[in-house]
């Protein structure tokens, strides 16, 4: 098995899986019908992308491994999602701020991966980028509306943007496998990732009349399998069916 490629695909799939799960928790609980459906749509888009990454990972792994094994039957320390994605839904501004940082990063990552030397990766990225273009539009529109809305919405949006700023540094910390993938023409250039992320988020935050948080440290660990306490609870939910009824399907 090509272990580096497998590890890389897990890195690509885990963040959208966990964020998608967080968004799915809002199904039926959104602020109104329209936004509820919009967030569920985004969750489903992300799960579709995750399936593509895990199917490829399962093939690379071999030995009969399936996408479901990868999604449902790993332990907490084996998940490689960034800790940003496991943070809970507190209020709508939180949901939007988390999504906004994620989408800005995800968009830049996938646009680079459309040029990947690995044809399967470039094909998955090309399919996903249309969805993520819409996600980024959705979340940044909401950042502007809430930032530039009422006094109350401005305060909440500003607080959420400031809160999640401590999670964004991890998005740009390059693991060994990501360095290796970039060197071989398969992965993304993290310098470009950071530059594109900063320029996009700064522009939106300026338009929204929000202060750009100045922060010189970051929460980290997810990409090494060291998670915040929230992931354990997520996995309890996410894995329940497969743990209780091994191999079940519907």
């Amino acid at each position, binding site marked *: 098995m090509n272990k580096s490629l497998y590890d890389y695909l897990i890195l690509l799939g885990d963040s959208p899986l966990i964020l998608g799960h967080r968004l799915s928790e809002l199904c039926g609980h959104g602020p109104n*019908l*329209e936004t509820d459906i919009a967030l569920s749509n985004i969750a489903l888009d992300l799960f579709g992308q995750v399936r593509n990454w895990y199917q490829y990972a399962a093939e690379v792994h071999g030995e009969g491994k399936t996408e479901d094994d990868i999604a449902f039957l790993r332990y907490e320390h084996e998940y490689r999602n960034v800790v940003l994605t496991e943070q809970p839904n507190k209020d709508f501004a939180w949901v939007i701020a988390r999504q906004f940082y994620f989408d800005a990063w995800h968009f830049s990552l996938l646009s680079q991966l459309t040029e990947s030397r690995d044809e399967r990766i470039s094909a998955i990225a090309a399919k996903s980028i249309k969805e993520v273009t819409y996600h980024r539009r959705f979340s940044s529109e909401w950042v502007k509306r809430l930032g530039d809305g009422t006094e109350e919405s401005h305060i909440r949006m500003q607080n959420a943007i400031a809160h999640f700023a401590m999670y964004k540094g991890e998005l740009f910390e390059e693991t060994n496998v990501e360095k290796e993938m970039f060197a071989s023409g398969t992965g993304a250039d993290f310098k470009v990732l950071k530059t594109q992320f900063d320029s996009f988020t700064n522009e939106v935050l300026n338009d929204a009349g929000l202060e750009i948080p100045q922060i010189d440290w970051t929460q980290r660990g997810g990409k090494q399998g060291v998670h915040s306490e929230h992931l354990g609870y997520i996995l309890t939910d996410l894995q329940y069916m497969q743990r209780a009824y091994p191999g079940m399907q519907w």
Partner: protein
Amino acid sequence: MKKEWPVWEVFIRSRSGLDHRHAGSVHAADAKMALENARDVYTRRQEGVSIWVVPSASITASDPEEGGELFEPAKDKVYRHPTFYDLPDELTHM
């Protein structure tokens, strides 16, 4: 105090060449949001290739009470239907 966003009527064109058809309504603060909400609510199953949104308040509706004078007179004028023409087979959207 609860303030609802205004209501917008949504029209979807399912394929090129067809008309936009009324699909339903959404709540939205402005036209841009109405378009996005309509996309999220009404085109999830490939229902459309184009969306129109119109503020519901801009629609002037006929009064159901006036149904008699508005619509009844057409009832017995069957000769206004083009049923006396032979249509070519290629004409599919009449």
